[in-house]
């Protein structure tokens, strides 16, 4: 199944071994989008690597930037001004909503509901317009930099974001009416693709996929990075660990992200948005691992410095790559049609899987 297939979320091949229409094995074959990003990192300066992080999980670029920049900031003890911290939260949470809207749209179209996909993409356009206003890019931003953010947002950005937040509840209601209330979706998603919380942890699942199986693991809460400990939000959890729970957890997370953005806008202080740091960074020799909660799970960066201007090694702990390990187990005994639903709710992003 794949790599050229409308429902494999990019260039993924799943080799299915079937008994009639029941799946015996579902082995993902990856690497069609492997671009050697970790090797490239070794011949770029630390700053030059930032645009590469955009292109990993390309629908969550703000988060990728944030993870990498915070890793280097941790290695070099670089502080970030208050205003920049708040802007980072606003951007990453807006990105989380945009990413989950893509998830929702993919679930809809994979199950045959084209209109559901279009509505999701239409609403996501509002967020892309906000990003365009802030940093000139719609998808790959390189906005979050070492020591802060690249530039302050224009005044109209704040107003436009507030307007988006005001319109967002109605958007979510519409999606819930069309999709969550839809009987076909219930039949397709409920009770299929179940994985228990314990198996999910053992298989290395993280993010909404893990939380759908009832495991309370959100890095923003357990190991808050940046200023996430200043915001009040809930972590939605599932109970059964089926496709439906994985869908609903992300729908709820969108609302939580909107709440976080509203709080950040209220608390946003004036001030600089970038610490003074050298143009070319030269960290002391050593290594560092830092992780953040990206929309697809735990995104980690392991950076080894040899004291020069270029990293000795960068490894990206990519949630989609590790989450795909569970595909075979979850698909056991499913129908082929369920494989499509399971892939949709596991929500892999091939740019991140293949690196």
């Amino acid at each position, binding site marked *: 199944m794949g790599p050229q297939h409308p429902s494999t979320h990019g260039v993924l091949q799943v080799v299915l071994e079937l008994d009639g229409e029941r799946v015996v094995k579902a082995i993902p074959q*990856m*690497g069609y989008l*492997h671009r*050697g990003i*970790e*090797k490239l990192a070794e011949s770029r300066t630390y700053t030059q690597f930032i645009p590469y992080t955009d292109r990993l999980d390309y629908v969550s670029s703000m988060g990728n930037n944030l993870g990498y920049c915070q890793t280097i900031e*941790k290695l070099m003890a670089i502080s970030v001004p208050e205003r920049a911290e708040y802007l980072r939260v606003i951007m990453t949470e807006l990105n989380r909503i945009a990413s989950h809207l893509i998830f929702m749209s993919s679930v809809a179209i994979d199950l045959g509901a084209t209109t559901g996909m279009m509505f999701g993409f239409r609403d996501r356009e509002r967020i892309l317009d906000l990003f365009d206003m802030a940093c000139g890019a719609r998808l790959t931003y390189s906005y979050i930099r070492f020591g802060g953010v690249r530039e302050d947002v224009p005044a109209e950005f704040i107003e436009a974001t507030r307007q988006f937040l005001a319109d967002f509840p109605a958007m979510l209601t519409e999606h819930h009416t069309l999709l969550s209330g839809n009987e076909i979706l219930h039949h397709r998603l409920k009770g299929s693709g179940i994985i228990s919380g314990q198996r999910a*942890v*053992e*298989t*290395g*699942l993280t993010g909404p996929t893990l939380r759908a199986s009832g*495991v309370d*693991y959100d890095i923003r809460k*357990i*190991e808050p*990075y940046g200023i996430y400990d200043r915001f009040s939000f809930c972590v939605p959890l599932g109970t059964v660990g089926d496709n439906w729970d994985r869908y609903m957890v992300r729908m709820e997370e969108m609302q939580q992200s909107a709440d976080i953005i509203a709080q950040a806008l209220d608390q946003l202080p004036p001030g600089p948005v970038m610490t003074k740091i050298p143009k070319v960074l030269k960290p002391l020799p*050593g*290594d*560092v*691992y*830092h*992780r953040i909660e990206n929309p697809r799970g*735990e995104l*980690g960066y*392991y950076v*080894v410095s040899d004291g020069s201007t270029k990293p*000795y*090694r960068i*490894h990206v*702990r990519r949630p989609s*790559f*590790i989450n*795909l*390990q569970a595909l075979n187990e979850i698909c056991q005994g499913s129908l082929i049609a369920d494989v499509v639903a399971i892939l949709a709710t596991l929500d892999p992003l091939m740019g991140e899987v*293949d*690196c």
Partner: protein
Amino acid sequence: MSKQMISSELFLRLQAQFSPGVTIIGEHFQQALLVESEELIELLTVLKTDPNYQFNLLSNLTAVDYVEYFEVVYHLYSLPLKQSATIKTRCTNDHASVPSVTAIWPSADFQEREVYDLLGIRFTGHPNLLRILMPDDFPEHPLRKAYQFTPDGEKG
């Protein structure tokens, strides 16, 4: 973040328990336990099952080519105790092989395959050690420092 690193006291206890195969290296967030590959499985099993540690999530598994040797790095997290730890082990270029930890954490599966594919380190005991990102018949391990890609063509 550094306050949730496993305490030096627990590290010292582990060092005493597994001496001389285990040494503490680095400080603060860079602190790690360096273990001989012969003791790796025993140490990691203790870290997963012992009530003082309970590292049930293998957060990250990767490796680095330091030219004279390879270093395999494990980042562990304990959901019940909310603590993290870094474990490292080394192997030489000639015998680039360490034991697989898939029996302890199934989540090591793809990550070990990626390290094997790109760096050429074999994980003994891995149920399915095949390339995962590069084409199946690719002759080299491209993330090794010795592998340099030039505009004229590959130079292994």
